[in-house]
C-alpha cells in the first residue's frame, strides 16, 4: 500500500525576508530513510529560502516578527527568522 510521508526542512535566515541567506538548518525525515542529526554538515542545503522553494519544498510556517520585550531589547537568544518547509513523499 502506498502511503505519504512528510519530510521537513527548517531554515534559519539572515533577515525576515525569505530570499535572504541561510545561516542555519535542520532536517527531519518522516520516511525514516535518513537520520539527519546535530553537527552532521557544514554546508547548508540551500543558499536562500527561495532556493528551497525553487527545489520543490513547500513553505508552511515562518516566525512572526515579535517586538523585543521592554528592558530586553539588547538580549540575544534564539534565532529569529525560522522558516519551516515540507515535501510529501510517497512510499
Amino acid at each position, binding site marked *: 500500500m502506498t502511503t505519504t510521508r512528510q519530510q521537513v526542512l527548517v531554515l534559519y535566515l539572515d533577515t525576515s525576508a525569505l530570499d535572504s541567506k541561510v545561516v*542555519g538548518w535542520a532536517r527531519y525525515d518522516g520516511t525514516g530513510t535518513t537520520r539527519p*542529526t*546535530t*553537527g552532521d554538515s557544514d554546508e547548508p542545503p540551500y543558499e536562500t529560502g527561495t532556493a528551497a522553494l525553487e527545489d520543490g519544498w513547500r513553505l508552511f510556517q515562518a516566525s512572526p516578527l515579535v517586538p523585543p520585550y521592554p528592558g530586553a531589547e*539588547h538580549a*540575544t537568544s*534564539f534565532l*529569529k527568522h525560522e522558516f519551516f518547509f515540507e515535501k510529501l513523499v510517497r512510499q
Partner: protein
Amino acid sequence: MPTTKQLLSSVEVARFTAQGFLRLDGVVPREMNEEALGLFAAGAPPAVPYGTPVPVAFPEGSFARRLLGLPSVAGALESLVGPDPAVDHHFVHTRPPHEGSAQPLHADALIDVRADAFDVQLMYYPQEVTAGMGGTLVVPGSHLRRTNESDTGRYQNLRGQTRLTCPAGTVLLLHHGIWHGGRRNDSDTVRHMYKIRFNPTVPQVRLWDTRDVDSPAVREELRRTFPWYEQATARLEIHNRILLWRSLSADPGFDIDHWATRITNRPAAPAAQRSTA
C-alpha cells in the same frame, strides 16, 4: 617544555570574549595522554562536591592536578577565572564506536545572566579526534545568548560551527554559556573527553597579562562576527561584548563604533537652561 605559568594576552582574552572559547592544541604531553586513556577506560573519576577548592578536589600528584598545573593550562585558566577557582563538577564523557546519537545543541546548566562574571569549562581530549570520531560541536559566539539548556536542540547545523578535530592532548576552555554538543561517533574508536567546570572566587577583572590592553587588535577581536549571526542580531552581540569587556578590563568607557556610548547618551542641560525651564 616551559615551566613558567603562561598568562593570556589581552588579544587572547578578547578572542575568548568574542567567540566564547579558547583552543590549546596538543599542550598535554604524550605520556599524560596515555595515562589518561588508561584512567578514563577504567571509569569516571569520583564526583567532587560542588564548589570544592582545586587542591582539595584534586590532591597533589593526581592526574587532574597535574593537568591543571601545565603552564599553558594554568596560565589560561588563571587569566579567565583567576587564581584558586572552585571546582564546580567534573566528568569523563565516553562515546563508544558507532554510537548512533548526537547530543542536541545545548548550553550547560541554567540560563546564566551574569553580565560581569562567567564560569569556565575545561575540555581535555587525550587522543587525536578525527572527523569520523565526532568531536565536540561548538558554535562560536553563542555564549552570550540567553537560552535554557537544550532548548536549542532544534538547530542541527549553523554556518561557521566548529566540528572539533584536534591532535592528542588538546584542551578547550569554554565560557559557560557556549552552545555545544557531543557529535555522533561514526568511527571504530572509543572517544574520551574529560570536562571540569570552574567557578571564579575573585572578581574577573584584569586577571591576564594586560600589557597589550590598548592594542587595536583587541577591538578587532571584539568586533568579529560569525557566519551564523543574523544581520541585525550581530550588532547586539557586539554591544553585549562591549559591556563584558568594560567589566573585564575595568574600562567603563570602552566602546566599538560608538555603539554603547550612543544609546546611553543623556546630555545634561546647562544650568542656566534648567533654571528657566
